[in-house]
């Protein structure tokens, strides 16, 4: 635990110092690190990229998780095997998921290009990564969504399991359509589960690293803030600036998490 708290304190204090191994000594420099961050184009564009990763990732993983959780709500033959299959992508390393999906997005040999061509939807193989910013980020974020959706699904399933069955039976007796039941009963009552799922997705997407690093290298088209922290600290060897960026990201994580909590969470009682 000391190994988590002390470094965190370190980060807060040293983000106001110039810490560069090639330019000693360590000295106080006020907001200099922060000023340099905001005058670096790569950092500015990464802020936008990370914003897109967050929005796409949180929305997509939450919608998919609700869909999967509702599918798995009731007991049916093969349900436990299906849950095991659903959990599978969660267990795999992000790096390997990058390799796996690189085979799908690839512009020369990828599965998607092949399928789209076979279906006569495109005439020539397309480039999905690295050319168009939004497309690049969408393709990369789908890979992360693949990894984080299983946990969201489990969290929402747990919330679903808490809803008493009489509510659904009463709705059915009253002639409520499945869609109306979902809108009026299921969705409001799983808000606690959705909240936790969204917060975990937020933390993961805000810190996304493995997938863009593997799929897009250091190209700025899809580079994330964690990638910038890594480049600034371990390639430019400017630890002070790296600290400053880590600190800003931690603050952003907490502020946005609280925002999600306020916006989505409603206490539920049965």
């Amino acid at each position, binding site marked *: 635990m000391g190994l*988590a708290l002390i*470094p965190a304190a370190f980060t807060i204090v040293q983000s106001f110092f110039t810490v560069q191994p090639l330019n000693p000594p360590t000295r106080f420099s006020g907001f200099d690190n922060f000023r340099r961050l905001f005058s670096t184009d790569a950092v500015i564009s990464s802020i936008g990229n990370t914003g897109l990763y967050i929005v796409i990732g949180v929305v997509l993983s939450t919608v998919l998780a609700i869909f999967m959780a509702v599918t798995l709500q009731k007991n049916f033959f093969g349900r436990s095997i299906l849950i095991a299959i659903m959990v599978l992508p969660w267990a795999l390393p992000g790096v390997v998921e990058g390799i796996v999906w690189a085979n799908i997005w690839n512009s020369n*040999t990828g599965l998607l290009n092949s399928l789209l061509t076979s279906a006569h939807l495109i005439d020539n193989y397309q480039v999905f990564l690295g050319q168009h910013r939004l497309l690049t980020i969408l393709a990369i974020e789908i890979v992360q969504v693949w990894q984080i959706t299983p946990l969201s699904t489990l*969290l929402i399933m747990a919330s679903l399991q808490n809803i008493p069955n009489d509510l659904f039976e009463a709705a059915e007796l009253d002639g409520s359509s499945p869609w109306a039941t979902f809108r009026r009963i299921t969705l409001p009552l799983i808000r606690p589960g959705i909240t936790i799922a969204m917060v975990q997705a937020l933390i993961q997407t805000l810190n996304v690293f493995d997938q863009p690093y593997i799929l897009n290298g250091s190209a700025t088209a899809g580079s994330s803030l964690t990638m910038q922290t890594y480049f600034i600290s371990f390639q430019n060897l400017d630890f002070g600036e790296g600290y400053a960026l880590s600190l800003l990201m931690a603050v952003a994580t*907490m502020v946005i998490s609280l925002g999600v909590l306020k916006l989505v969470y409603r206490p539920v009682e049965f």
Partner: protein
Amino acid sequence: MRGRTPWLRRIGVLFIVLWSLVPIYWVLNISLQTDAQMSAKPAHYVPPTPSLNNYLSLLTGGGNVPYSIRQSTINIVIECSAATIVTIVLASLAAYSFARMKFRGRNVLFYTVLATMAFPPYITLIPLYRIMTFLGLVNTYTGIVLVYVSGFIPLATWILYNYMLSLPIALEESGQVDGASRMQVLWHVVLPLARPGIVSTAIITFIFGWQQFLFPLVLSSDISTEPLTVVIAALQGKHTVPYTLLSAAGVLAIVVPAVIALALNRYIVSGLLKGSVK
């Protein structure tokens, strides 16, 4: 609703199966082909002449790439196993103290442990690197395992704490009446009862260890400690390693967590829920 919406569920079931398995099928498919076969347009949806050549050259071949894949597999197994064992031992002790003992500062300490879970993990990346440099532990198993343990202990403690709280206290009390010490009660009564919780926590910790990339990328500087994830990323970055071989390496890195996830799924689900609900 009985019988009224099976078509919707059928779509859901089909979606879950395709979504989870197609990407994995595809990497397997590529790994069983030759370079020439992989370049076909449209692609071969099943390997035309399935061959284990890529795997054989990684597992038994000479040269730099197979060597680094083999060495980094040994590294990742050592690092994950050691981190899991140390985490479970420390977290069991911590969880038991928090769940069953009263001592000064317990609540403060407990909430501090929990609070560290809310930190984005990478806020500690640079300081941990500098601490490890200072201690001379960069590029050592000890350094990597220490960093993993520090990252995994909060969640492991939290899962085990919730599990131990749900155990009946009566057995422990009768143990104490019979004159057993705290450690004897923990060893002979609590830990056997908590075994499913410990298994869950160990599996989740091991899988988290297997997924690590940025921390070992920073903390390892050569093949003596680099885990499989770091080596695969480096091979991919070079653009000289054929995709078929890279896919085979990817499959090797997937096998262990995939088998664990499919075979021991029950423990993962219960552990993750114990660790996040409330």
